[in-house]
């Protein structure tokens, strides 16, 4: 159980948050023009990285805001936290 430094509230226990999966997935501009394969790829295909991963988290039992987290999935170390729409502070 790790601690997440919410950019709006500060350090809180993991139990207050819910994970929103991989971050920085861009929605296609014209979904209707995509093949079924390409649409499925956007909807379902996610990287399952062992190491540094960019994730979205929601402070669901707090301010209820969404933000991004850079987390090492092998040891749960959180390298950075930044707001939605901001550029990642570390290189992707």
């Amino acid at each position, binding site marked *: *159980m*790790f*601690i997440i430094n919410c950019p709006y509230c500060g350090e809180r*226990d993991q139990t207050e948050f819910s994970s929103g999966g991989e971050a920085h997935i861009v929605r296609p501009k014209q979904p209707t023009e995509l093949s079924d394969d390409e649409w499925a790829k956007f909807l379902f295909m996610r990287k399952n990285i062992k190491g540094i991963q960019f994730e979205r988290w929601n402070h669901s039992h707090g301010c209820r805001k969404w933000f991004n987290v850079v987390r090492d999935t092998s*040891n*749960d170390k959180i390298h950075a936290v930044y707001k939605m729409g901001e550029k990642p502070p570390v290189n992707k």
Partner: protein
Amino acid sequence: MSKELRINSNKFIDQTTRLSFKFNGEKLYGYKGDTLASALLANNIHLVGRSFKYHRPRGIMTCGSEEPNAIVQIGNDPSLTDPNVRATEIELYEGLEAFSQNCWPNVKFDIGGINNLLSPLLPAGFYYKTFMWPASFWEKYEFFIRHSAGLGKSPTKPDPDIYDHKYYHCDVLVVGGGISGIMAAKLSAENNNETLLLDDKNILGGATIYQNNDCFQIDSTHTNYWLEKEIKNIKNIKNLTIKTRTSLAAYHGYNYLLAKENLTDHLSPDERKGKIRQRLWKIRAKKVIIATGSIERPLIFNNNDRPGIMLSSAIKKFIDFYGVKAGKEITLFTNNDSAYETAISLKKSGVNIVSIIDIRDKSSSKIVKEVEKHNIKIYWKHTIVNTEGYRRISFIEIMQLSDDGSGVIGKKIKLKTDCLGISGGWTPMVHLFTQSGGKLKFRSDDNVFFTRQE
């Protein structure tokens, strides 16, 4: 209670308060401060249970949370009964009722003991391989297999007790209230850190609090008196919270730890009413200091599982802390100097030591010289080859080791004994450290796995 197995003038046991308890229906007596294990030993009871498969007799082996053998069922109320409790961990209270597990009709005469005689026919995997065929017979086998599976009986009615949980945040958490834990907690609290000190026993001090051997001194005082003063002092430090009867159970990521505090398990049933039984502590600490000490290792020889065979450090704690003699004629078997501490404690309390059997050629340490002064027979370079005694050890057979240590030579010597202390060196309790993700490294100078610094 057998008076001859008790020594007087012991400050940890209140010999003015006698408590009655029942073991397998027999009414026995102990004192306030005893554990169930020490009270049983004071009543000359070593045989406590039966092993799982072969139903071999099992006795008390250690004196702490590492106890593998002496596990009992507490109480027989259908909603309050507690299976698989270590006799070394349960504090004695008025009206305690305990029962042996895994034996029928009783622990002294167990029908299941027949498995021990049949053991050559019951190899590992016997049940899996035998009860597979014919498939239609499974329902017939199942009745017997279910009957012999598991240890102890679960309660059949809902638990009426009240339980609590609590979140706690601190700068430093110190796990273990022995000498190093106490000193670490003191330093940490004096440097303005909010500190929590946990220990699973009812008093602080670990193994040092009863160490009154002349060879162990700090500032020219015996270490037990020195530590007693320190404990008195730390109770006045304002940043320091001390919790006893609290055992740490888990070490999760980001220093999130779980501990269980026992609040009423040491009280008599009348005193428990309306009180919280246990409290789960959810601790988030900035730093964690693990000061959990070491446990003694056993030694390997034929039939080393008989009741009456104990760790030498356990015999020392029973005599020095509980004031209980684990036997009337004690033998010690060792490969290091620790057993000699036990020998001195026993000699001081007037227990007869048959002999000390040492695997080594010799030792020139101060403590061994001290023992030699007491005229105790030491068999250097000898080893135990076998033991006798079904419900309690009665004889041991020893032989001399060959020069390269790979075999035995000479004649067998048979010695009569009613309690054997074994000491195979010490293993640091690194469980919490590895649970937190720490790695271990073998340290060859004292043959232990120890923490590896990244």
